[in-house]
């Protein structure tokens, strides 16, 4: 479990990096807006980063938990199906997926 100084260091880092990302562009708005690289990154980055996070968190669960991949696979499928067929209501999809995982994980 993390010590308090470590938690405080995390808070300081998160505060500084996030605020810098929100504030600095306003200072260099014209340069950034004219940068083709920045514009391309804005299109390419989000989907890849989110996909990497989805797989990384899935892997954390698989390596840290009971090692049973079935509940995770079912929960991810439930989430994706609910999201694509249920009109992309994030709370509903996440709720159903989490419920599926919790139930399966506690049953088996």
């Amino acid at each position, binding site marked *: *479990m*993390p010590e*308090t100084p470590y*938690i405080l260091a*995390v*808070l300081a*880092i*998160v*505060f500084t*990096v*996030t*605020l810098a*990302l*929100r*504030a*600095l*562009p306003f200072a260099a*708005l014209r340069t*950034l807006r004219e940068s*083709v*690289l*920045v*514009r*391309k*990154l*804005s*299109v*390419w*980055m*989000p*989907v*890849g*980063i*989110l*996909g*990497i*996070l989805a*797989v*990384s*968190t*899935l892997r954390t*669960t698989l390596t840290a938990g009971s090692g049973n991949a079935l509940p*995770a696979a079912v*929960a*991810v499928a439930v*989430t*994706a199906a609910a*999201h*694509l067929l249920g009109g992309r209501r*994030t*709370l509903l*999809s*996440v709720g159903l*997926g*989490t419920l599926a*995982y*919790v139930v*399966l*994980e*506690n049953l088996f």
Partner: protein
Amino acid sequence: MRASRISSARREIAAGLRDSLAAGLGMFPLGIAFGLLVVQAGLPWWVAPALSVAGFAGSLELLLIGMMVAVTPLATIALTTFLVNFRHVFYSFSFPLHVVKNPVAKAYSVYAMIDEAYAVTAASKENWTGWRLISMQLAFQAYWVGGGLAGVWASALLPAHVEGLEFALCVLFVTLTLDAARTRKQVPPLLLAALSLGTALVVAPDASLFVGLVIFLVLLIVRFVMDRRRGVLNA
């Protein structure tokens, strides 16, 4: 004169609060889940409000719970924060910050430029005023911090540990990935991301997130350079 200025400010504040409601309906329950997860993960309860004030960035805060429990190196925390929150750079291009005149309010507006605030202003064609924008942003932060505290409180009502609750984060990223991958243009970056993480899992299994994100960023820049050489960049 003064009375009319006060009544117009009041109208603008009411409009800002109305603007905040739809997104707030999603933020408050997610905040509860966040507060619950903080306590369930075994972190001190104050981490929930502290993260929501220090970062005020929902998906990153959820991600940080697991990273903090694992005492992830601070360099990985910094890089993950940088990449996950990098999208905010693009928000500044169209966020109506110019309507906020007071310097303190302006600083707050920049600090609180979250996804939801950007999305609401981007989707509306209305004339924003400083009062309206700031009251909407303050309302968002109240929902988020309040939801987190409600989750901390609710955790006391639950059994000591609900097995598997932390999986909410994984499925949240699954839905966000699906939302980001709506057009065929998103297939190449998704494949590059898969290649990056796959490589990282082989060469650096203990730091796969950090290494995977770095490889991904490098590959995107390589793609950009190659596109420019071939002259296929449609700027």
